[in-house]
């Protein structure tokens, strides 16, 4: 047993102690296949919550996206994101010769599952903001990978923006029915459909 594994189990335990981190599977079963999970984004806690709600076997192959400049800035942050979560690093600064989605494509080509927050940033409104185009490009490039919408409920109460200690409040993650890009569907329509799929889970939860 290695240290990152123990630290991971401890983090998952902590997340469950504080939030319950209950996963409700409403459109698909938890299954060891390649998937792209996409969810609403309200707090730094979101990723840990989804990760803790997944069955233990799926955690190792499901990877988050981390901003390279922030999450590699100190050795501890780097260690957490690299060793425990096996994050995919992306740079926030655009350079001309580099596609920002390239690291994600790499991860998908090697067969890993991803969790993405298509709003791009944390929101503080009850409804998620418009989705960014990245989800569409991934769906286009990897047509065979099911896209799973997720709704994270209550997490903004656990740790509001600006606070560092989470309050114990029960949260849940609802996983919905898989989505795929339809033939001839344009970017706008697809992103709207994806956002609606996430929102629809709020009623199911």
């Amino acid at each position, binding site marked *: 047993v290695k240290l990152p594994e123990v630290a991971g189990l401890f983090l998952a335990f902590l997340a469950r102690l504080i939030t*319950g981190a*209950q996963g*409700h599977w409403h459109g698909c079963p938890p299954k060891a296949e390649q998937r792209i999970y996409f969810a609403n984004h309200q707090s730094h806690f979101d990723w840990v919550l989804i990760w803790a709600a997944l069955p233990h076997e799926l955690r190792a192959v499901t990877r988050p996206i981390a901003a390279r400049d922030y999450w590699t800035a100190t050795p501890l942050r780097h260690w957490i994101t690299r060793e425990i979560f096996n994050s995919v690093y992306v740079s926030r600064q655009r350079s001309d010769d580099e596609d920002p989605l390239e690291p994600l494509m790499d991860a998908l080509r090697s067969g890993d599952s991803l969790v993405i927050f298509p709003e791009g940033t944390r929101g503080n409104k009850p409804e998620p903001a418009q989705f960014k185009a990245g989800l569409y490009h991934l769906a286009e490039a990897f047509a065979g990978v099911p896209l799973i919408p997720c709704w994270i*409920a*209550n997490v903004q*109460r656990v740790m*509001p923006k600006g*606070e560092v*200690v989470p*309050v*114990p*409040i*029960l*949260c*849940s993650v609802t996983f919905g029915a898989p989505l795929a890009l339809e033939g001839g569907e344009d970017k706008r329509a697809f992103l709207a459909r994806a956002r609606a799929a996430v929102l629809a889970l709020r009623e199911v*939860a």
Partner: protein
Amino acid sequence: MGSLRALGVTQQVALLFVVLFGLLMLVTIVSISRSLRDRTPAQQELWQGYLRDLRAAWIAAVLFWIAWIAGAIVSTLLFAIVSFVALREFVTLTHTVRGDHRALLLAFFVVLPLQYLIVATEFFDLFTVFIPVYVFLAIPVLSAFGNDPKRFLERTAKIQWGVMVCVYGMSHAPALLLLDLPRYEGRGAFLVLYLVLVVATAQIAQEVASRRLRRRPVARAISRTFSWRAWAIGAVSAALVGALLYWATPFKPIPALVMGLIAGGSGTFGAFVMQALKRDAGVHTWGGRMSVTGAVGLLDRVAGLCFAAPVFFHSVRWYFGF
């Protein structure tokens, strides 16, 4: 029964647990044999609820057994954990806002551990006033620092109520472990078990009675099943069980009966009050499938204990005159 009183502590405990687990096993076997019957969907739902209750009873019994083996400190810790989970559920369902963040942190990470630490160190003078006096004053101060005057009194009151019930009320159960009663040293676990059994009996008897009797409910908007007669049946059943268990307690048979009546009666009132809260929060059961949060439904089960424990604790202290 008198001969039971003469047994040693370990033998009495063993007997209690044999009876408890025997009863549970009997009920489980009967349930399994009836689980294949045809049911309408409504009956099926009731049946599922019943099975969940049965499982909860098993878990509780095993927890008590572990607590008995492990001693007073571990039992106190177990109650602290239950308290934590209950408060977590309570806070989830009362809509707290950003400004309450610090006050909630105080409740969860300072008040709760301190209260149980006070219990474990038997600091009884502080135990009874810590939450009702000092925490009562500290919570609104922290909430005010949250810089949000909207519905201030309401929000503060909610947090205080939750702390009173989930932490203060619950902490009286492990406090029984540490009471030094005359000629009853080291047997506090009996009192806790007595309290839990009596409260559970009252709730089960009341539930069964209200289903059979169909009396006019006292407060229809809150509970369709709570009637005075059902409540009385619950309390009297608790009293009878309490009297049957007198040999394990420091009481004589009649006081044991009265103690059972008091604890059972106040416990079912507690469950009734929780129903009012549930109605207000808009969920049928705290842990029902309908709730957004997927709460585990613990609060439902411990509400009776939270109300009965303080009443019982002080009844015991008055009875022994200290």
